């Protein structure tokens, strides 16, 4: 591989890593808006619920504000890792100093 090809590879790899980082930050923001937005209402109002609203034996807010986002995030993680994240050639190790 020529020197210029090698530099192009580094630049391409850097840009791809940056794209992946932006996607991860976006996912974090979306999950945050969902979990904190929904629970800021549902979880904080639950102590006054009579009768207690339950789903699958848990408080309802836990299912909609935690369990479902968790499942969705895991599904996205699987898609992201298998489809979006790109493989890069790993650099051979230089000799130790």
């Amino acid at each position: 591989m020529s020197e210029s090809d090698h530099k192009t590879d580094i630049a391409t790899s850097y840009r791809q890593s940056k794209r992946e980082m932006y996607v991860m930050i976006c996912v974090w923001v979306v999950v945050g808006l969902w979990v904190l937005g929904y629970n800021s209402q549902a979880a904080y109002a639950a102590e006054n619920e009579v009768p207690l609203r339950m789903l699958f034996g848990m408080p309802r807010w836990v299912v909609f504000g935690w369990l479902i986002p968790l499942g969705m995030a895991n599904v996205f993680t699987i898609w992201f890792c298998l489809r979006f994240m790109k493989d890069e050639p790993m650099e051979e190790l230089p000799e130790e100093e």
Partner: protein
Amino acid sequence: MTEPFHILASMAGNAALISFAVYMVFVFVLAGLANREQSGKSFLNEYFLGSRNLGMWAFAFTYAATSASGGSFMGFPSLIYTHGWVMALWIAGYIVVPLVAIGLIAKRLNQVARKSGSITVPEVLRKRLGSEAVGTVATVLLVFFQFFFLLAQFKAGAKIMTTLLGDVSVYQSAVTLVGDLTNPIPWVGSAEPDYLLCLIVFSISVVAYTAWGGFRAVVWTDMMQGVIMGLGVIILLGLALNQVGGIGNATRELARQVPPRAGSATLMLKVEPTEVVTLVKGTWMELPEKEGRQQFVRLKDSAKFSVGQRVSENVSVILVRTSVENETEISSIRSQINDELGVDVSSLDVAGYQYGDDKSGVYISAPGPKSNSGLGFLPIMLAVSFFCFWPFAGAAQPSYMARQMAFKDIPTLRHSIIFVAVYFSMIYFPLIIIFTCGRVLLPGWEIDADRIMPEMATFLTTNAGVPWLAGLLVAAPFAAVMSSVDSFLLLVSGSVVRDVYQRRNPDASEVKMKKVTYWTTIGVGALAMVAMLNPPQFLQDLIVFGSGGLGASFLMPVVLALYWPRLTSQATVAGMLSGGGSMAIFYLIGYVVNGKFSGYELWSLHPFIWSVAVSAVVMVVVARNSPPIQAVLVEKYFGKTELMQ
């Protein structure tokens, strides 16, 4: 407690000793095998990074096991038990931890570390920025903050061992012997002999296998420990749900619970004692029903009656007031009451929680009960803080970064993120269910909530007629602590050897480096052990200070070093110092305002958030106003010098 329970608990104790012994044999076998792997390879690269060829299972398990430290299996259960379902919101950031904390920097960090031939985090920063000052500041901050972690884990390991082996007769004899030997020694003699014995055994074991086998031993034992943790949680979940009568029943009883009140009472024996009578900590007494709630008093400390003395005043107690509809909870408490005690309770002087007192539903909602704050356990802004804290403080922990520098290729990384996402889901969600069930099955453990994990393990297995299983279950938190201690130990010694000793002695032979490495690992471990002989009271706050300090010092400098070509060495030094310094200032303000060592939460936001924000702003401002770094470095790590514009 009844006699049969003692016998079963003793069986559990013996089983725990056997489980522990078998477990330690496995750990040392793995360390020996790892030591053999070192031959023929570059010593430092193998000892500190396992020659950077970790496969999927090794990388995923070592990351997960190091992350799930003693806190996950001791502190977290204690918080769930004390505050209820709100802990799901507290830990909600973990929903994205595998993706963000690993994915954010792992790929770039691994590439930059390989390209620069770096073994430690300070070395990556030093070479990326081409500055000795960056490496020196990073080393000092890393060793300083990481050492707090190490100390805390040593204490946690020793504490778990004392619980694990509490009923074993051989152990009790050894404790007596240690007590006799150390009692006359100043300072050392003031430590509890059982804690002292366990601390010494724990320290020697973990330091020996870490020094012997290095990073590879740590990774292999992490794999074994990860399996134990996963199995332990799944078994506990099954037993808890079965014994509580299903999760629906647990949630309904929890919804009717109110927080206990704490204070003091006067105890009076019905019959004048003819010998010394001691009511042990945890003793229950039933009071008459009041306002639809069945009342029970539980001792927070033991109460002693001398011969002829019927009254004991100012005994520390909690008052548990549970709904008469909570059949499981009431029957659990009544099964622990000794009807032959003959004690009357009077002069009850108790105070309720500042948030949640007498409030049904407080354990199944946010912000959750809190004894010393009228805002509750988790006001919404604090929930926002923790949602930021877990993924980003996680990403910035050097112990995780060391692992991210060690995987062999990108497919390993991709599959590991998926594995960790599934593994964390299978650990943290069940833990919340288990310990909310714990509030119903084992009420009244507010007297010592940190013990709820081993107590639940013993209770559930004993009730299920399989007390020997407690050994495996209690081994789970022990494994979690060990997997964190070995990693932190290696990280601190790695920084000292690579970033300090080798920088000053670049021509040191491999034999010399080996000797220095072994002795540094042993020295750091010995220092931590000595420091923990008499652990300080405010240790938990020091842990939070340590983890937050690492996060604040390294998050922005590392992220920007990897993704921002314009970053300069001056900005990196300023970012590390301002991040770590801000944490220190927030703790100083907290000390002045709260009267104890704790972080000041401006607008209910965790100091970590403010410190990272300060670090980010400082770095951008300094980078814009300092000379650019050498173009050759940008070309080396980013490919194109135009990116500097």
